[in-house]
Every structure is written in structure tokens, then in C-alpha cells.
């Protein structure tokens, strides 16, 4: 493996020297962010190559309005909130689900199946599943919607904030002052959607898009491929995750998504409202749609004062540039979602890089 890494490093070094300017590569997946920090990948890259963490962590991109809705539902009588672990610590103005856990009904689940089971086991409660995540988790939610519909489970609802990756990438590139030269694209999203979904980025914006897995060697080879393209002034879609990613993806999973959901306009933290970026339940499944069933209007919400998560996840600033980073905002007492989620840029930076950034500043 070391030989492959060495070879990739040589390609990166050569290309960066040749380009001679600052190069910004954005990784659009929280799992990439964690792997990059955990493996110290930044430390072996040339000084003029910068990795930006993009809007790829599901907890981080979730807008404050949704968080507030979730917290409000948790207070209602006869409600049971089923959520993935990372969501329970995201704070609103008056605390997080975790801080409410003693007096409200909140259950951490590992899968959407568990959430549906919870509804079956508690027929006297309204069970609301906090359905967040990208194309990777959407099929699993679709499966339980299908099940709930077939079995006529009347007390099961989802609060959908499932997101699509590509509309967010488009939104970032449409900003005039964006500094993004290329994207490192997530392997696991592509397993579902197929790597083809990124071709519009290459065609419409001429930015290299390279799909890579999460092993450090795959990430480094992905960066090498990007650097090579930039040096050769090319912009192509390449997948170096070929074992599992195909151009067309997993047709069955896509069918499941299509059966239950349709892309609609939705809010993102830091990016505002983006057209066709959020999966909404189709009309025929509206009985499971918590927004519709309980008459909730989705609003952008107000971010907590001082928190710059929006800028962090657009790659506009690095976490230490936020005044609260490491002072009043730490993983023990997070202020914004980027410090809550283990995949958030602020948390990764704090855990794996904090002292280095202290020393260099």
C-alpha cells in the first residue's frame, strides 16, 4: 500500500508545483471528512493544496427550522420521536433532544426498521421518524414507508429531510466567489445513484469530479486523479471506486426512492432554499408525512448567534475561524451541528487537528 501512496503523492506534488497557485478540492461527504482527518491526509499534502469540507454531513446541512420542529414535536403529548444517534445532540434555543430525554419520549434507533417496529410496539403513540441523510439512507426510509402502507400502520410518520447531493453542489458553484476547483465525490452515494449523477457538474461547470471510497488510499488516489486533471486543464468524471460503483447505480434502490419520494424545494443550512434538493413524500403516501399530517410548515429557522456552520459547510471558512470554536463550542458542549456530528467539520477538526492549528496560528 505504501508504494501506491508514494506514487499518488508524487503525482500530487508534481501537479501542484506545476499549477503553482492555490488549489481547493472539496470533499462532499462527511465520511470522507472523518477519514481525511483520522488518517492525517492533510498533513501529507503540499502547502498550496487545500481540502475543503463541503455540505456532506446530514446533521450539519439540516436547517434550524427542522431542528426546531423536531424539538417541538418531542414535547407534544403522545408523541414518540425515533431518531438516528447524531441528531439528538443538535441544540435549539432551549436545549437538544438529549437534554429533553428525561421528560420527553425520544428513542435512538439504528435503522428506519427499528423506528417502524417502535410504532408497532406503541400503537397508542404517534411515532415520528427523523428521516435525514442523503441518497444513502433514503432507500431504507422508502422501504419502511412501503411496509407501513402495506400493513396499514396508522401511527407511523416521517419528518423527511432527505437530501440530494448534486443540487447542493450546483448551488455552491453558482456562487460567484466560490473557490472550488474540483470535487471528491462520495462513493456510497454513488453506489445507490450511480456515478453518472455528477456528470452535470463536469458538463455545466467544468470541474473535475472523482468518485472515491473511504479508505485513505482511495482518497489519496482520488486527489491525485483530480490534481492530474487540473494540471492537464481537463475536467472529467472518474470513479476510482469501481468495485461497487457503477455508472447507473443500484436500480432497485432508485426505484424504491422513486416510488415514495419526489424531489422538491427544501432549505439547507448555509445554502438557503434549493430547488429540487429535498425528498418529499409523494401524495399517495401523504398519510405518513408528518409535515402534512400535523399541519407543520417548514421554515428556514434562525441559526444560533455566533455559529458559522453555514459558512463552514460551504467551505468558505475553516472551523478555527469561528470565534466560538474550541472556546464556547466544543464536542462536549456543541453550539452548532458541525460540532455535534462526528462527521461535522468542526468536530473532526477539534478531535484530530486542534493542537496543530493552535501551533501554526
Amino acid at each position, binding site marked *: 500500500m505504501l508504494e501506491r501512496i508514494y506514487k499518488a503523492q508524487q503525482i500530487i506534488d508534481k501537479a501542484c508545483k506545476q499549477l503553482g497557485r492555490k488549489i481547493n478540492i472539496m470533499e462532499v461527504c462527511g465520511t470522507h471528512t472523518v477519514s481525511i*482527518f483520522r488518517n492525517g491526509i492533510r498533513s501529507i499534502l503540499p502547502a498550496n493544496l487545500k481540502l475543503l469540507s463541503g455540505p456532506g454531513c446530514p446533521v450539519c446541512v439540516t436547517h434550524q427550522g427542522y431542528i426546531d420542529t423536531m424539538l417541538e414535536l418531542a414535547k407534544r403529548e403522545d408523541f414518540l420521536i425515533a431518531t438516528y444517534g447524531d441528531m439528538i445532540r443538535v441544540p435549539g434555543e432551549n436545549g437538544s433532544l438529549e437534554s429533553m430525554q428525561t421528560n420527553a419520549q425520544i428513542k435512538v434507533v439504528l435503522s428506519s426498521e427499528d423506528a417502524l417496529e417502535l410504532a408497532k410496539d406503541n400503537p397508542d403513540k404517534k411515532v415520528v421518524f427523523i428521516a435525514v441523510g442523503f441518497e444513502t439512507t433514503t432507500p431504507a426510509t422508502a422501504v419502511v414507508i412501503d411496509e407501513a402502507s402495506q400493513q396499514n400502520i396508522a401511527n407511523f410518520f416521517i419528518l423527511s429531510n432527505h437530501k440530494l447531493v448534486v443540487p447542493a453542489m450546483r448551488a455552491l458553484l453558482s456562487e460567484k466567489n466560490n473557490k472550488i476547483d474540483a470535487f471528491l465525490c462520495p462513493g456510497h452515494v454513488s453506489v445507490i445513484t450511480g456515478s453518472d449523477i455528477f456528470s452535470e457538474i463536469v458538463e455545466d461547470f467544468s470541474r473535475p469530479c472523482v468518485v472515491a471510497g473511504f479508505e485513505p488510499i482511495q482518497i489519496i488516489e482520488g486527489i491525485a486523479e483530480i490534481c492530474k486533471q487540473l494540471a492537464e486543464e481537463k475536467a472529467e468524471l472518474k470513479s476510482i471506486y469501481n468495485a461497487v460503483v457503477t455508472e447507473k447505480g443500484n436500480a432497485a434502490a432508485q426505484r424504491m426512492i422513486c416510488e415514495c419520494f419526489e424531489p422538491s424545494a427544501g432549505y439547507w443550512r448555509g445554502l438557503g432554499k434549493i430547488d429540487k434538493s429535498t425528498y418529499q413524500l409523494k401524495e399517495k403516501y401523504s398519510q405518513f408525512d408528518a409535515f402534512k399530517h400535523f399541519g407543520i410548515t417548514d421554515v428556514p429557522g434562525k441559526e444560533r448567534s455566533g455559529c458559522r456552520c453555514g459558512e463552514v459547510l460551504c467551505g468558505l471558512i475553516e472551523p478555527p475561524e469561528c470565534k466560538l470554536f474550541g472556546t464556547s463550542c466544543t464536542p462536549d458542549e456543541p453550539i452548532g451541528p458541525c460540532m455535534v456530528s462526528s462527521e461535522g467539520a468542526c468536530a473532526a477538526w477539534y478531535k484530530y*487537528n486542534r493542537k496543530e492549528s493552535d501551533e501554526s496560528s
Partner: protein
Amino acid sequence: MKAAKNKKILLAHGGGGRLTEQLIRHNILPKLRNDVLAKLGDSAKLDFHSESLFFTTDSYVVKPLFFNGGDIGKLAVCGTINDLAVAGARPLALSLSLIIEEGFEFAKLDKILDSIGQTAKENNVDIVTGDTKTVEAGGVDEIFINTAGVGESIEGVELGLDKLEATDKVIINGSIGDHGLSVMSQREGLEFQTELLSDCAGLGGLIGQLLENTDGVKFMRDATRGGLAATLSEISSGSKLNIEIHEKNIPIKPSVQAAADMLGFDILTIANEGKFVAIVKPESADDFVKICKAHPLGKETSIIGKVTESSGEPTVRLITKIGGKRIIQMPYGRELPRIC
């Protein structure tokens, strides 16, 4: 002698009356048999030979009670033995307190007591005093166990963070993350749970051998809650020295790594129950590793790094498998499984 005929623990089993007496005589004593305990005195009288004594205590509340590779009883004995052993003590005796929820099944209690008795025997330690309380349903979650332990010092052995110097070697006696991920995957009902096995083990024997047969051991700590990351951070901040660790030298089982990746955990922060980190003088490191490797609990022992000078805030650095660098810190908050 016939065991108690109730199938479940009643509140009266902790009331100090006839049922308590029955519980102790029929269920507990036969499994932990030794002369001191058999006297059932208010206090145990111990004979020991060293000038100083080591004394420690810990409480155990693990869920699930029975996991792959152990149970709460084994854990309660091993944990306290290990706390004594890594401090450089020879474990002498333990106390055992049970706090049991009303309605707890005798079958489970017996299984736990069997395991306590067997683990104590395997580790050559007697349980010399104890207590049993019962609380009403909901008062505790099934059973909580507290053990305390005393140990005597081993001649010529004195361990301490103040003894550490740059160039000392950092050694671990085997693979990390096994206990935490085994228990977690079982608790969450994950499909790969059967492949994972807790490393729960009493380290008194191995550490005794090491301390008696090598010199140059400066400090030891068992890498339990917070995992290797917490232990190394404590050693670094306590000694005010830096530590440099090579990821490629840390033993990790592939199935454990796969489970950690799936849940999104940093394996360095996952709990172990049969692993110690030792800081050893460089000249003694090879002997130390040799003794470990000859012992069943140290077959995969590895020198994972070294102590280095520190000019600023003491820091633990990891040289990753790809040659990158990052820091290792005390784990923060509660690690939560990630979304995708």
C-alpha cells in the same frame, strides 16, 4: 444442600432475615468458597506481608449482562484485579456487593455467581467479604455489582508517571476495541455481533510475571473506558511528555475494525477489558515483549510507540498508516453512531 426454591429475587432476599440467610448460604457461599468468607464475619481479617497496601474499588453496570466472552460477574472480578495489577500490586482479596432488582431471575444470578467464583479462582484471588441488597422493581436495572480489592506491593517494584523519560517504549498486550464493540454490537443487535468477542480477562498473572522477571517497567494502566486514546492522553498529560504512536503497530482485529467503521467510531476510543499500556525502559522492552508473547493474554503484544520530549502542551501524536500525522486526545462527550 437444596438451593432456594423461589425462581425470582424477592425484596425480602435483601431484608436481612431468613431469605437473606438462605440466599447467602445456598446461592453465594458455595460458589465463592474460601475460609475467610465462610466465617461470615462482619469484617474479613487478612494476613499480608508487604509494608504498604493497595486498595481500589469499581462498580459495574454493563448492559447486556451476558455478552460474548464474558458477563457482568467476570467483568467485576477482572476489572478490580486489573486495577490492582497495573498499579504494581499483587492482588490479595476482593469484596463483592450485589444490588439486585426485585424479580431478577435466580437462574441469571446463579450464572453470574458461577462466573465470579470461577474468575476469582482462575486469578488466585479470594472474595473475602460481601453484601447483598435488593431494591424494588425499577430501582436498578437487573443487577449492579461493586467490587473493591486490596493488593500487596511486589518487592522492588515502584511504578509512577514521574519516572517516565523520552525514549521509553509504549507497549500494549494485544488487539484493541474488542470489548466495547462486542458489547455495543450485541446491545444494538447488529448482525456481525457473533463474530466479536470481548477481551475481558484478569491480568494479574501476566503482570505479576512481568514485574517479577523484568526491570525497567515504569508505568502501567489498563485501557478501559475511553480506550487507548484516553489512556495515552492521561499518561502524556500526567507525565508532561509527548507520546508518538505508530498506527501500523497497533494490533486490531479486522472484524473489530469493520464494526467500528460501520458505526463510525474511532477504534482508539473504544473500551477494552483485558489490555494494558506499559511504559518500559528501551533496554528492557524486548524482554518485556518476550514474556508477554509467551502468555495467553499477550500473544499479540506490540511496541506501539515511544515517549518523546515536550516543549509545549503535552501531546499524543499518531503517525497514521499512510504516513500522515494527527493528534490523539481524550475522547469527548458521548460517541454516537453516525447516520449513514
